[in-house]
């Protein structure tokens, strides 16, 4: 890949997927994977800020040891709805449904996904599930925690459990449909010459994610139905009083929900693999290992769920097996991290915004992953189980992982999606604010948990106040960091400089078509002769889009 002219930004010379119809109907009935990706983008952004609003209230309440902002029941509802919305309506769909939808066909040289109408259906199913969940919020909320543990959820809770669970149930089908679509697409729609081991690693990661989605999500759906059956009809499944087994719920729930963590971060890891090569101007180190490690994570992730149940009454024998197996899941993750750092080695690194998110991801993932090993250790887990140590750990892995990968990816592909550059200076500032805010929010929680503060409590001993105030202060910084991209990305839609087809001089197929791409993606289906990482080593970063912008290279004006 040598020079690609980027100094002649051209937008709207051809019609593109954004100009192909302006009516509401042309969006709501579209089968274009790129438009559906944008529908998802808007939807999950709304859910993200709603889930964030609950987090704000939680952190406000935790500023004082007395828990005097809200009643105990209200606090229970706050963290429940924060968890349900963030997990099922942001973290799980964020990268696959937005970036995966947009990019997979472009990256493999296809005109769309294999089942465009099923793709649209998946968005509608997602929205319907979201509406059910919102209905449960509006009608007073749920207080079971996002994990819906029985027998509380199935027997005792007096809140709208069935409504919220139904929302999660329905949304699961959107996930299954997306996974199915991705798998069939990768198997059948690759352009000529796009062999499996030329696939971009982002595609590998989403393929592995899709396997988890179709193998795991049905179990969650069935579990939720069982809770509803017990709750509505009093059939004894989980409630010991009725002859059920409450641990059965936890087995079924975590059979899905541990792998769900990989549904969240595998696609992000795929994003990181793409970004780290582009901004090191180097081929990814150990392509095959990174690709296969995604599959290993997907399969292996199903063997460790019992590490959530060490102190729940699970047998000691099962606990030992799950502890032992949990250590192994660190291996494929570590393979990825080591390969990324090896890619950086002797690369010509440039520090554009997406690359800042790469560093953020590696840092947060390393902390989150290593503390996961603490938790996989039976004896340590007994000490920190159900404390803020867990809360910190899973926020580092899930939120750190997804937000870094998602925002890094959104910035990297924003020029492709919209045809506009985002303002580099603001974006770097936001990335920095998010990184600092994130660590200030969640690192103190490791300490709190280790000192013994339980999760899901809002009244706590006074000696924990300093760390809690630090965490809340961090959350306010984090909030600013999240709001900034919302503002400047909107701004860039109108005032951002035109990007041209390939502002990063990146090697992937998606950069060989215009920005924004035409509805059919490519004028002619490309014939692939090399993998997506054909960077000539040490070529340096060609032209900084920022410089382009500062020169006042005023973008081509369009309608």
């Amino acid at each position, binding site marked *: 890949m040598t020079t690609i002219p980027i100094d002649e930004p051209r937008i709207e010379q051809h019609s593109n997927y954004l100009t192909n119809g302006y009516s509401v109907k042309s969006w709501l009935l579209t089968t274009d994977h790129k438009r559906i990706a944008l529908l998802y983008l808007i939807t999950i952004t709304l859910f993200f800020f709603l889930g964030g609003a609950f987090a704000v209230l939680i952190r406000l309440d935790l500023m004082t040891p007395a828990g005097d902002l809200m009643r105990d029941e209200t606090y229970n509802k706050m963290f429940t709805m924060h968890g349900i919305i963030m997990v099922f309506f942001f973290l799980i769909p964020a990268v696959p449904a937005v970036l995966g939808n947009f990019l997979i066909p472009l990256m493999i040289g296809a005109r769309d996904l294999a089942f465009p109408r099923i793709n649209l259906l998946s968005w509608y199913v997602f929205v319907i599930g979201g509406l059910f969940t919102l209905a449960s919020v509006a009608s007073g909320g749920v207080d079971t925690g996002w994990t819906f543990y029985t027998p509380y959820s199935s027997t005792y809770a007096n809140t709208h459990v069935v409504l919220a669970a139904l929302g999660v149930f329905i949304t699961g089908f959107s996930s299954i449909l997306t996974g199915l679509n991705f798998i069939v697409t990768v*198997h059948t729609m690759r352009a000529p010459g796009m062999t499996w081991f030329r696939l971009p690693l982002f595609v590998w990661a989403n393929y592995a994610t899709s396997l988890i989605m179709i*193998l*795991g999500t049905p*179990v969650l759906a069935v579990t939720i139905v069982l809770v509803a059956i017990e709750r509505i009809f009093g059939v004894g499944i989980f409630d010991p009083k009725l002859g059920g*087994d409450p*641990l*059965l719920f936890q*087995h*079924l729930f975590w*059979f899905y929900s541990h792998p769900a963590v990989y549904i969240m971060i595998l696609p992000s890891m795929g994003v990181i693999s793409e970004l780290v090569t582009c901004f090191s101007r180097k081929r990814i180190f150990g392509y095959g290992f990174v690709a296969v490690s995604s599959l290993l994570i997907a399969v292996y992730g*199903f*063997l460790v*769920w*019992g590490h959530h*149940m060490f102190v729940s*009454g*699970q*047998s*000691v*024998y*099962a606990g030992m*097996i*799950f502890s032992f197996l949990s250590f192994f899941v660190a291996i494929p993750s570590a393979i990825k991290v080591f390969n990324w750092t090896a890619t950086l080695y002797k690369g010509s690194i440039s520090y554009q915004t997406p690359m800042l998110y790469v560093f953020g991801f590696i840092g947060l993932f390393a902390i989150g992953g290593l503390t996961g090993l603490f938790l996989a250790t039976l004896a340590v887990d007994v000490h920190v189980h159900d404390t803020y140590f867990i809360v910190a750990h899973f926020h580092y892995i899930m939120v750190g992982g997804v937000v870094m990968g998602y925002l890094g990816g959104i910035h990297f592909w924003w020029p492709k999606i919209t045809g506009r550059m985002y303002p580099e200076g603001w974006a770097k500032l936001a990335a920095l604010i998010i990184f600092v805010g994130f660590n200030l929010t969640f690192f103190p929680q490791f300490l709190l948990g280790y000192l013994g503060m339980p999760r899901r409590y809002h009244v706590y001993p006074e000696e924990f106040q300093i760390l809690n105030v630090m965490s809340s202060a961090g959350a306010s910084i984090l909030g600013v960091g999240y709001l900034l991209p919302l503002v400047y990305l909107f701004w860039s839609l109108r005032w951002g400089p035109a990007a041209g087809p390939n502002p990063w001089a990146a090697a992937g197929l998606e950069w060989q078509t215009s920005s924004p791409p035409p509805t059919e993606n490519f004028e002619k289906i490309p014939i692939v002769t090399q993998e997506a990482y054909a960077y000539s080593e040490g070529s340096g970063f060609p032209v900084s889009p920022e410089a382009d912008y500062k020169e006042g290279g005023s973008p081509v004006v369009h309608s």
Partner: protein
Amino acid sequence: MTAHDEHSISTRTYFLVFTALLVLTGVTVVAAFFNFGHLNDIIALVIAGTKATLVILFFMHVWHASGLTRVFVLSGFAWLALLMAFTFADLFTRWQVEAAG
């Protein structure tokens, strides 16, 4: 899709499978009137499993499907087996907890 058409299942086969399903349903009903003790559950599950297999193989066309499709079908069952194996690994060893307590 031509490969698919070549192997399309004949109407006769559909009716045979349908009849077999009806017969097996009858067997389920008849079996319910006898008490086989411990075998009750096993008999019911074997009949149900046979019926499900017939549906998957013929009504869902797996009999003539490609190797890849079969791998995906089998992996679904492998995952179900995994779920049950590890869950029972807990259930059948809980006595150790009691001993420790």
